[in-house]
């Protein structure tokens, strides 16, 4: 038998608050997301449309340029439609970036069996998922609401003072539309990545979940002549939602408009399913082989 001296001293120093443990997960996840050159490339590409839209705002607000280059072309009127285009462009780019980043955050940990080690710390499964969610949300922010609001601010700065005040709803719409979309993308990306260990397949799954049901919804709408098929069509739902957020008249026929409540219920249901998927997959137990 051993002789127990009981001389082993436990750590008695001060502990950081629980929320700061989540920050460690966030930091690690952001580092992981940005460690790939492809990620940096995607971020750079995502700035190109912003640059183009910024030039558009410059041209639209510069009297000489308006006369010489645009010949007062109405395409370059800076209004809700213009910012809807900005929002749509950036939000679909965000889908591409989420499809690339989300699997890096979760699939790698699952493939490497890293969860038992991570979860044998005082960070819960909820804390782990929250950390990854915040990281993905933070990565998508510079692509969506941040450039949208910066362009809005630039337009406000470049145009006559009343434009900024009278179009504040656009800023609110840009913010709300972007936040809703990237929150949805983040939870969807994490949930799908937790079920697919292979990163490339997980990326494909994220795109498939957005676009395959859209096709099915289109068939339902066409065959049954009902607008409710669009409830499976994420692009249509989001476009209608963004139009309403920005106060832009909807281009679809009025009988195909979905109620905002129905859209929000579908998105909430989808998020609930994602949470259940994460709950089932993010487990600390070690997989025993052999």
């Amino acid at each position: 038998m051993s002789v127990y001296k009981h001389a082993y001293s436990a750590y008695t120093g001060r502990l950081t608050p629980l929320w700061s443990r989540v920050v460690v997960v966030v930091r690690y996840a952001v580092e992981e997301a940005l460690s790939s050159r492809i990620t940096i490339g995607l971020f750079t590409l995502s700035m190109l449309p912003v640059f183009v839209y910024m030039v558009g705002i410059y041209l639209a607000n510069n009297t000489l340029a308006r006369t010489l280059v645009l010949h007062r072309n109405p395409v370059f009127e800076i209004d809700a439609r213009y910012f809807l285009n900005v929002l749509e462009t950036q939000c679909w780019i965000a889908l591409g970036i989420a499809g690339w980043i989300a699997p890096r955050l979760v699939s790698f940990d699952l493939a490497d069996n890293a969860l038992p080690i991570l979860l044998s710390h005082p960070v819960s499964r909820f804390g782990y998922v929250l950390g990854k969610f915040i990281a993905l949300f933070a990565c998508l922010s510079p692509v969506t609401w941040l450039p949208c609001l910066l362009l809005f601010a630039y337009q406000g700065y470049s145009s006559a003072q009343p434009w900024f005040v009278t179009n504040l709803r656009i800023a609110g719409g840009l913010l709300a539309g972007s936040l809703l979309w990237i929150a949805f993308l983040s939870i969807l990306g994490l949930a799908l990545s937790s079920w697919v260990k292979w990163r490339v397949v997980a990326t494909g799954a994220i795109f498939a979940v957005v676009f395959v049901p859209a096709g099915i919804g289109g068939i339902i709408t066409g065959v049954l002549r009902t607008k409710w098929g669009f409830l499976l069509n994420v692009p249509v739902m989001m476009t209608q939602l963004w139009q309403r957020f920005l106060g832009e008249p909807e281009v679809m026929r009025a009988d195909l408009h979905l109620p905002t409540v129905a859209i929000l219920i579908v998105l909430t249901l989808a998020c609930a399913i994602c949470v259940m998927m994460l709950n089932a997959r993010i487990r600390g137990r070690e997989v025993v082989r052999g």
Partner: protein
Amino acid sequence: MTAMNDAIIFENVSKFYGEVLGVNRVTLNIPPGVTTLVGPNGSGKTTLMNLMTGLVQPSSGHVSVLGLTHVDADRFFRQVGYCTQFDSFPRRLTGWQFLLDSLLLHGMSEGDALRLADEALQRVRLGNAASHRIESYSKGMRQKIRLAQAIAHHPHVLVLDEPLNGLDPMARAESLGLFQELSRLGMHLVISSHILDEVDRISDRVVLITGGYIVAEGDIHQVRREVRDKPMQVLIRCDQPELLASRMFTSNHCVEARLHADGKGVFLRTADVDEFYRLLNQIAVEGLVTIEAVAPADDDTLAIYQYLIGSDGSPS
């Protein structure tokens, strides 16, 4: 800490993964010291370890570690260090970053985390490799960094799943020395290992498990004595082994004799160890043979494993 909660306690614990049995009706009380979990692959060792590290919750029953449960996560995980069996590192981290992040996740301040990471690295003797990415580590170095992560936050309970796998003999000896040292300082070490002869040297008790059921537990010699249906084997070094064997066979509890390869000893199997030693004493006193040494030859973990579980993994 009271004596009562200075133990890892399983009270009638069962764990099912859907319809698959992990462990069934396990009742254990593990005091400080080195406890070895022994069993074939898929016997439930890792499930037991996951239960005591709070990574899985029992389907029924209750697990407490030093009086704490996973509900009190902050205090629970401060007391428990887990060294997993498989490579399970977040990617692209150096050994140093891995340790530092682990300590920050435990809630240490950055200053303390730096100090404790340094201390743990020195303890496992990883040296300069800590500044390299874990992907570039050899199997032995990965074991070391896993061990460093498990001990860095000064836990009282160290759960080590196959910690000797992949280590060369020198590193294995170093690790065993470290385990022994930690055990003497009053830590709980729960080790699962297939390298039974080496773990045997430092084990205070053994838990044999197969098919999710505990087959035996306790001090290894005590367990061996309780395996009454398997005659015990004793090695006796003496000058006249043949004569000793013939004399021992005059009593009917002696069931087998085998000469040692060097001809200077004999392995004897007896069904009644008390009677055996009484007779051996008598022979020694008579001076019939000169006995140099007497040692049990099969009261080690390996022998008990073979007797109780067998090579096919089913209880015999």
